[in-house]
């Protein structure tokens, strides 16, 4: 990674450098990693990655909402959302980060 956020391309580059996968294989397996997680969540199946965290699903009921511009009342439809719960190990690793307090 040079600067800015870590991307799929950076992850593939590391697999190329550290595991010796060829660039096409590395790119493909990174793509598959995220696609399999999406596919699992899409079928309402929780994803548990020990040491990292869990991706959980929550069903939200319809609730009244408002158009913030016009103040008009519009119902917010029932929907399913993904939440991420970091695992103990990840939380412990991140907790000590002493950077900016934003």
């Amino acid at each position, binding site marked *: 990674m040079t600067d800015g956020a870590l*991307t799929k391309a950076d992850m593939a580059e*590391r697999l190329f450098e550290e595991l010796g996968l060829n660039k096409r294989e590395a790119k493909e*397996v990174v793509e598959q990693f995220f696609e399999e997680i999406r596919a699992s969540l899409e079928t309402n199946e929780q994803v548990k990655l020990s*040491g990292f965290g869990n991706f959980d699903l929550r069903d939200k009921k319809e609730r009244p909402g408002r158009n913030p511009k016009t103040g008009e009342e519009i119902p917010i439809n029932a929907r399913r959302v993904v939440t*991420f719960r970091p695992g103990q190990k990840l939380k412990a690793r*991140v*907790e000590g980060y002493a950077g900016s307090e934003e």
Partner: protein
Amino acid sequence: MTKSELIERIASKQKQLTAKDVELAVKGILETMSQVLADGGRIEIRGFGSFSLHYRVPRIGRNPKTGEPVALSGKHVPHFKPGKELRDRVNAGMQNES
């Protein structure tokens, strides 16, 4: 789906990589992501979502057993914001169930 099931699912669709390679790749991806967050960085995966750190201010907590006040220092916690494709697919998954 657990980490080992994720590895199996990828391996079953992989034509080039062995199951061992896929296992090392999955573990390597997770280690890279964890390390970037531990160093205060961000992760942005288009169509999946972004990971960043949120800061929690110092506060006075309590020992739940004794009720005694305990000073808790400020800390960072990992945060995930799902991307549009993930949100849409998960939500469509629910609409298709009914």
